[in-house]
Each structure stands twice: as C-alpha cells, then as structure tokens.
C-alpha cells in the first residue's frame, strides 16, 4: 500500500490478509490462491504488509475490550491515512469486524468478503473458468461460517461461486442459517475446548463427511483448521479434502 501511496496511485482494492492468512501455513495457501486470482484477472490491489495488525476480533470476543479498542484505533489510523475506500478479505472474522465494528470507531470502508468479491467478478465476466475443471461432477459440500452466514447474512454468494465449478453441491442437514459452527469462533480457536462429550469440529467433520462429498468447501481460515482436524479425526483425510473456495477457483482459472 505504501508504494501505491508514494506514487500517488489508488489500487482498486485493499486485500486485508488477516493474521491467519499471513502466518498460518495452511491459510497462506488460501492467501496465495486469492492473490493469484486477483493477479490473473488484472485487478490492482494492495496489502498493508507489515503495517497490518490483528483487527482485535478474538480479544473482543474473549472479553478484552481494551485490547480490541487499541488494535482498532491503530488499524483505523493506518487505513484512514492511506485513504482506503474498499477492502476485500478472505477471513469472515476480519470481514465482520471491519464492516460492522470499525464504523462506530471512525473507520468507514466498503468491505467485502472474498467469496462475494469472487461472485461479483464472475458476474462481470472478469473470471473465466476452464471447461471441465478439476471438480467437474464431484460432490462438494459447503460449510457456512458463522461470521459470514448468520452474523452477516451471506449465504448465496459462496454457493453461486461454487456453481461455476460444474460440481454437484450437496448440503449438510445443518446448513445456511441452521449451519453448525466449526468450534473456532468466539476466541475458542485460541484455547482448549471446555470439557464435553465430543469436540464441535469432530461433530461438524462427521456431518460433512456423511454427505459423501469428496470436498468440503470453506470460506474461513479458522473453519479450515477445525474441519481439517475433524476429517483427520474420522480418518478420512485421504478421500475428503477441505479447501477454501478461492483455492478451488484458482485451480480452475482459464
């Protein structure tokens, strides 16, 4: 972003990578896949790089409002200094915080989740898919993340993107507004689960596997971790892959 700014240029969109997308090895692949799509479709985009910080979402959900407000203050200063207007992010937690919680604190941006962004690019004809792609005819099930689904009401865009893959989309019983959480939200990602009869991600993993799908499509780096573990626990990691929608599209670009 600093380079664009120094040259007096404005990129089409700021790609907010997020902590998972920056540091988590599995999520980095999602980040690269999405960046590749942006590159191939000729969209000028910037990242904040080292100037990006955690949005504060996990701190806020855990109860630490001070820390959240500090992170928000700093991020808003950076974003406003660069005059950022439009943000796309591959993490529904960052998406929710930037879209719903920063405006009250002085950060007003047009924020879209990467699945919505991809759907718009497809609608505009800027993304062209290969004929007979790698998912053609395969069974795919889609996991609604809580922060994209219930929290923000985005259910259709990711499904419309998946439709371009010519795959067979099978729904889990608990889908859309009834979707079962992966178990990571509310800062659970960063602590051991409370004791119970099973883990949330095992429960969800089993449900996803029982659809008979060979791919579980996700839209969130935390769901990715949880579902991957859920599939491993069931011993099905050979046959059932957990992939982000951006990765699935990137594999099949013309």
């Amino acid at each position, binding site marked *: 972003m600093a380079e664009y700014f120094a040259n007096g240029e404005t990129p089409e969109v700021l790609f907010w*990578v997020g*902590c998972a997308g*920056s*540091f988590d090895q599995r999520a*980095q692949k999602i*980040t*690269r896949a999405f*960046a590749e799509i942006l590159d191939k479709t000729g969209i000028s985009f910037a*990242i904040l*790089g*080292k100037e990006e*910080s*955690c949005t*504060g979402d996990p*701190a*806020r*959900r*855990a*109860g*630490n*409002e*001070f*820390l959240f*407000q*500090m*992170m928000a*203050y700093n991020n808003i200063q950076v974003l406003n200094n660069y005059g950022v207007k439009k943000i796309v992010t591959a993490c529904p937690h960052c998406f*929710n915080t930037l*879209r*719903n*919680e920063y405006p*009250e604190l002085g950060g007003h941006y047009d924020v879209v989740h990467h699945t919505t962004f991809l759907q718009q690019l497809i609608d505009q004809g800027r993304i062209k898919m290969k004929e007979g792609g790698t998912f053609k005819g395969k069974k795919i099930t889609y996991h609604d993340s*809580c922060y994209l689904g*219930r*929290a*923000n*009401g985005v259910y259709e865009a990711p499904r419309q993107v998946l439709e371009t893959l010519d795959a067979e989309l099978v729904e889990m019983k608990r889908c859309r*507004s*009834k*979707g*079962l*959480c992966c*178990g*990571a*939200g*509310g*800062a*659970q990602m*960063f*602590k*051991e*689960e*409370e*004791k*119970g*009869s*099973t883990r*949330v991600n*095992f*429960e969800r993993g089993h449900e996803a596997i029982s659809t008979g799908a060979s791919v579980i499509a996700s839209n969130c780096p935390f769901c990715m971790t949880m579902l991957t573990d859920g599939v491993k626990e069931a011993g099905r990691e050979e046959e059932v892959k957990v992939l982000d929608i951006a990765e699935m599209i990137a594999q099949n670009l013309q």
Partner: protein
Amino acid sequence: MQIVSQLLFLVALVFAIYLFSRRVLGIRRNILRGRDAALNDQPGVRWKNVLLLAFGQKKMFRNPLVAVLHFFVYAGFLIINLEILEIMIDGLAGTHRIFAPVMGSLYGVLIGCFEILAVLVAVSCAVFLIRRNIIKLKRFISKDLDGWPRSDANYILITEIALMLLFLTMNTADQVLQSRGAEHYLLTGNFWITGHLTPLFSGLSDGTLMALERGAWWLHILGVLAFLNYLPFSKHLHIVLAFPNAYYASLLPKGRMENMPAIQQEVLYAMQPELAPAAPATDNVPKFGAKDVYDLTWKNLLDAYSCTECGRCSAACPATQTGKALSPRLIMMKTRDRAEEVGRHNGTPDNKTLLRDYITEEELRACTSCNACVEECPVSINPLHIILQMRRHLVMEESSAPQEWNMMFSNIENNMAPWKFSPDDRDAWTR
C-alpha cells in the same frame, strides 16, 4: 340469589385484576433494574418485526408442522378471549348470552368458530403433551428443565385443555336446556360442534344440566382468572412479552458486538494524550461488563422474562450439542431466576451475583459466539449478548481468563497477531 352471584363475580374479577397488576408492576420494576439501552430507532422496521415475528410467528415456521399447531393454540387463545368479554358482561350484569339477541344469526357463526378453535386448541395441546411426555423430544427431556420448569409446561397445557373442555361442556348443556325450553336459556340455534354433542347429555335432568352449565361457566371464568395470575409466574408469559420483545430486538447485524464508549475514550486519550481532559470528569470508576442483573441492559432482562424455555436455542447450540456445560436456554432461565431473587428482597445487597451463584465461568467459556441461539429464538431473545457482557466482566474486572487467552492477548499486544510470530514476517507469504 342473582345479585349474590353478580357480587361474587365482581369480587373475583377485581381481586384477579388487582393481583395481576401488582405482579406486572413488580416484573416491570425487575426489568428496569437493568441498565439503559436505546432501542427506539427505526420504528417502521420495529413494527414490521412485531408483525412478522410476534403476530406472524415467522421463526416458528422453521418447523411448519409444530408452527401450525402452535398457531392454533395462539389464535384460539386470542380469539376465544372475545367470548370472555361476553362472559364478563353476563357475570356483572346478571344476563345470559347478552350478545345473542343483538347479533342474531351471526352469534351462532361466531360461537361456532370459537368452538372449532377450542377443539383445535385442545387437540394441539394434547399433541404438545405427547411430544413432551411420551415422544420425549430431546430438548424437552434436557436436564435444563428438571423440577419446576417441566411441571410448569405440563400445567399450562393441561389447564388450556381443561378450559376448552369446560367451554364446550357449557355450550352443550346450554343447548339441551334450550331445546327443553328452560327459563333464561334463550334460543341460539345449534352450535357447530356442541350441537352434535347434545345426545350425550339428553338423559340428564333439567336441574343437573343447569348445575353442569353454571358449574362449567363458573369454572371456566375462574379458571381464566386464575390462569391470568399464573401467567406472570410462569414461562407462559411469552404470550404477552413476545410482542415488546420483537419490537425492541436489535436491528444491527448479528455479528456486531456492542461498543463500549468509555473504553474507546480511554484508549483515545492514551493514544492522543493531548485530547484528554486535564482532570478526570467524574470520580466513579465505570464498571466494565456484567456481573449481576443490574449490569445487563433492561432488554436482556426483558428477554429473560420472555423466554418460554422451548430450547430451540440449546438444540442449535454447538456447545450444548457437544455436551458442554453451556446451554443458552439455561442462561436465560438463570438470568430470570436472579432477577426474581433480586426483586424479592427489593434490590438490597445479598452477597450473591448472577455470575458464579447462577452462571459459571465454564458455561461462559464454552460459547463460540456463533449466533445460532439468536437465530433460532422465536421470541427475539439474544442469549449471546449476556454471555459476551459477562466475559467482559471476567476479563476486565477480574483478569480471569484461561492461560491460553492471556497468551493470545499478549501476542496481539506485542506481535499484532494472536500467535507468536514476528510482525516483520506478516508479508512472508508473498516470498
């Protein structure tokens, strides 16, 4: 004799209304112990919510079969209450079916509709009793409901069936008496349902029939008045509070957490000391988050009183479904219990708090903030808001957090990410 009966009716009516109003004012006081929250914006959208969610019971229709049965009970209950109006006037004025001569043939149609509804209400309530006690649906046999709450639900259903049967008995006896030309029993024509039931009573004497008719009439209206006063002590209060609760429900995206302007200010002053006022504005240190019902908003407490303990929230909760201590339904029930307890001793300190004496840390820690409970609730309750406020208290007032969360906090503070990575490597994925 007639005047004695009228006086008795008046006394019963006044007493019932007095008790009910006293209880309603008590609940109002308990709810207003919560902190202020402005929920009056966009009245148009709010009225639409009342129409769709409360009148239309939109969320109930996520399960259409149950929704239809529930709608019968609800519509029946509302509409049959028109009949109560006639009963009241008759009781006070010493008349019998005062609307009959005024309305002519329309009266028979009206009572016929009431009777059909009465049968639908009774049948639906019977189905609900079967679902609770014979089919034993998971959310109804949950330990959340052990003790009084489970009985409460059954009492309500049994009372409603009894009231409907009394209404039908009264009408049947009335028509047999009409056909025999008994005094006072003016001709109304045959009612749609009970008109077919008259053979059941044809063998009874006039005296027995009158006793039956009067007995059913009195039991019905006394039952209604008693039920009116049972209502505000029971989960059944949702039939009233669902309406204001739909009106005051949050209109914001579910993912948005309530802001804390006090902390926002403090952080601003820490970052830009030049903006800070020279002296602290007040001496009271604000309290962060919620430890007791006083710290919750009045809407949270209205939520608690609106809860009908159906358990749709807990059935959808990822924590409840995987055997964790958390059940959003219990969060609401415990909040109501605590609000009641505070009300009983009028708010004098009792060394108890909602946190720990009612809701444990383990329950609060199990929440994934997934909003499934909020999404499911047919009467617009938000258990998540209570949970998140209590987490804020734990972390900010008591520094009580799991060790891993403390590490996460310090990582965010020092490395700008919840994990221990160097901020310099944030763009390492590009290489």
